[in-house]
């Protein structure tokens, strides 16, 4: 059992490389080394040797926990991403399925779990194994090349606090080493040659080329029509809106809505509310019980829509600013807005007032499209209040306010 080199001083020594004849031999040696208390050493074999971890006294790796955590993270990520993107942020109803649906999310939850777990296993194994690592003192040994075919090696590192070349050699030989070889520290063995970094840098630059080329190509105007790789997808056998079809008499592929079709929410079935009529007669009562809130609403709506012509008090004439301006500018076709306090208007039922607001009258334009029905009734309520205000008696004034009246 001779060494390959004469004994050298420990300075500059990376460690000792011992070769063994078989997997069983290296496992036995590993047990001996563990029992002897060595800590900085490793076993190199062409295939995983059974029970080598327990022989070496290696701690159980935490990699499975990392993989489990990554897998669970994948499940949660998918479970959150799908309902959020398709159910909450931009809800898409897909063939009538519920927006937040667990069964549809399950396949991607499974896939992401597997993907992240696999990536964690691969990446974690590399990182926890200290890889990528370019150099190792063992590569300086020619015999070490057998480590990938039929050689079993133990490398005892000089970094071990108990390292002593002679003691180490003796221990390895007594453990059954066929040969023990001291390995020298190589100054450059820890770093990759600069060619590797140059190659990576070149590859990174070259990798930018395709996106640049693609962007440039897309930005250019082209004389030829685009190539349709999937013809059936680009020219689908379906009728587009405004397309023609020989199937129908009017030649249109689009079918007009059935006569009488109205948009959802526009069915104005309540004649009282929407037309101001009850059984064909003008409604005398409001369709909804008047409230103080409705009165306030009516006041604000009146000020917006009606006061410009009829004035804030409803006197018409030139009290409204639009009317005043038209008169000042001597508009030839301007008809003065009516006063709302004439007996004719005061006697009109509320339904008729509502109808006037909705459809207009004579030169007054229709406001039905601008003002929702409920607001129009609120305006009618306010107009009634205005009418009362201009035709009030002393009895209408509350007692508390009477002292403030001028005689």
């Amino acid at each position, binding site marked *: 059992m001779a060494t390959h080199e004469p004994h050298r001083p420990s300075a500059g020594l990376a460690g000792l490389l011992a070769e063994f004849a078989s997997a069983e031999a290296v496992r036995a040696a590993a047990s001996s080394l563990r029992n002897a208390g060595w800590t900085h050493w490793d076993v190199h074999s062409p295939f995983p040797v*059974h*029970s080598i*971890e327990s022989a070496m006294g290696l701690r159980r790796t935490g990699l499975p926990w990392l993989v489990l955590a990554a897998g669970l993270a994948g499940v949660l990520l998918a479970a959150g991403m799908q309902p959020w993107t398709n159910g909450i942020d931009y809800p898409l109803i897909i*063939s009538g*399925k519920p927006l937040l649906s667990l*069964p*549809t999310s399950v396949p991607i939850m499974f896939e992401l779990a597997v993907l992240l777990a696999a990536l964690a296993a691969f990446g974690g194994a590399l990182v926890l194994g200290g890889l990528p690592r370019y150099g190792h003192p063992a590569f300086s040994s020619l015999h070490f090349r057998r480590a990938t075919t039929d050689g079993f090696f133990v490398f005892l590192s000089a970094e071990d606090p108990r390292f002593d070349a002679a003691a180490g050699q003796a221990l390895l030989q007594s453990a059954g080493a066929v040969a023990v070889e001291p390995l020298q520290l190589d100054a450059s063995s820890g770093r990759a040659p600069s060619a590797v970094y140059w190659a990576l840098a070149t590859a990174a630059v070259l990798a930018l080329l395709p996106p640049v080329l693609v962007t440039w190509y897309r930005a250019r105007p082209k004389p030829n029509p685009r190539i349709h790789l999937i013809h059936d997808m680009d020219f689908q056998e379906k009728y587009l809106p405004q397309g023609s079809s020989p199937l129908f008499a009017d030649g249109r592929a689009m079918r007009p809505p059935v006569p009488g079709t109205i948009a959802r929410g526009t069915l104005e079935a309540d004649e009282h509310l929407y037309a101001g009529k009850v059984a064909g007669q003008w409604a005398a009562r409001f369709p909804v019980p008047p409230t103080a809130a409705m009165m306030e609403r009516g006041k604000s709506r009146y000020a917006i829509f009606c006061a410009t012509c009829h004035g804030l008090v409803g006197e018409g004439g030139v009290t409204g600013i639009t009317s005043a301006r038209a008169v000042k500018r001597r508009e030839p076709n301007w008809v003065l807005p009516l006063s709302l306090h004439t007996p004719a208007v005061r006697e009109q039922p509320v339904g008729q007032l509502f109808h006037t607001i909705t459809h207009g009258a004579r030169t007054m334009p229709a406001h039905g499209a601008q003002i929702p029905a409920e607001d129009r009734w609120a305006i009618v309520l306010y107009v009634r209040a205005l009418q009362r205000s201009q035709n009030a008696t002393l009895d209408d004034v509350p007692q508390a306010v009477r002292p403030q009246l001028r005689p």
Partner: protein
Amino acid sequence: MTDALNPEKTVIPSSKAGAAAAGLLLVGLAGLCCADVMQHHQDTSGVYSLHSYLVNFCFFTSVSLGALLFVTLQHIARAGWSVTVRRAAELLADNLAVMFPLLLPLAVTVLAGNFTLYPWTLPEWADADHALQQKQAYLNPVFFVARSVGYFAVWCLMARYFLRLSVRQDRTGDPTLTLSMERLSPPALILLVVTLTLASCDWLMSLWPHWWSTIFGVYFLAGAAVGALAQLILLVVLLERAGPLAGEVTIEHYHDLGKLLLASVAFWGYIAFSQYLLIWYANIPEETAWYHPRHSGPWGWVSVGLLVGHLVLPLFALLSRWPKRNRLSLAFWAVWLLVMHWIDIYWLVMPAYDPQRPPFGLGDVFCLLGMGAVYMAGLLWRCRNRSLVPLQDPRRHEALDFHND
């Protein structure tokens, strides 16, 4: 480690086994009769009895089929670790010969024209629509019974072949017997999977003649694998305690059986969910009709219970190393999964009888225990004069030496 062979230790005394078997057979048959009486009390037409019988028949048959699957797979893979537990699986598989005569009540029902179990028994059932008429060539009483007999014939022949050669090797130690078993195992596996798929279609899927699921056979196979591995684990635990397998199995065997159990649970869950998701997503009434009674109400709770109890809990429980390397823990989950597998078969069959709620009663328990006793009787009968360990299998040393690292 009994490298020094002590064959007597690995055999259950023949007289004991025979007596116990006879006793269990009587108890079992009595139990089945009691169950029938109790279930007739609940439903005098006897339809409930038929369905309950079918549930238990499929349960025990699936366990034996899963064992046969295990045996063929071990031979295909030339596995060494499983040698000392393989005899128990071979005996479980050979027990299909006991399930064969238990087919009789179902065969008689169908041949007698009793359509309360299988609607297609009545020739007029197909008049409803064209699709059913096409199926009639397959789903008719005579062909059904002939097929069922055929399945059992094939299974019994295969199981008996593997057991016979394995037992012969106990005496002769001839390694070419191992080669013969390995040579048969690939075609045996193919034949097993095909017949198992067709059997599940015949016995279980045809309860709803309108419905079909192309993954149903795989679903049944996955469930059978779970049941068989759970049963095998329990058998090994019991036999190790009782003596025949003491020293023949190590904690490594339990670890490996536990790993296979975990894998089959995950596989079952995957297949079960795949079947559900596709049908749910397509939302076609012809397909969803089968899931409809299982989707809500009391059956809905059973479905959720299966999801949680058959998949989620055992999966996470068996994921870690230590529960599998502990006999008590593994035995607990084996019992749990056998119960879950029974509930799975129950969930497959019973909504055909009562779509509103699971009609579980004492009769079901008696039917299960009765058929179980008959099954155990068959198993004990098989143990007579046979070692419970393949004594001279050429890979026996691998089984005794291997380590899970």
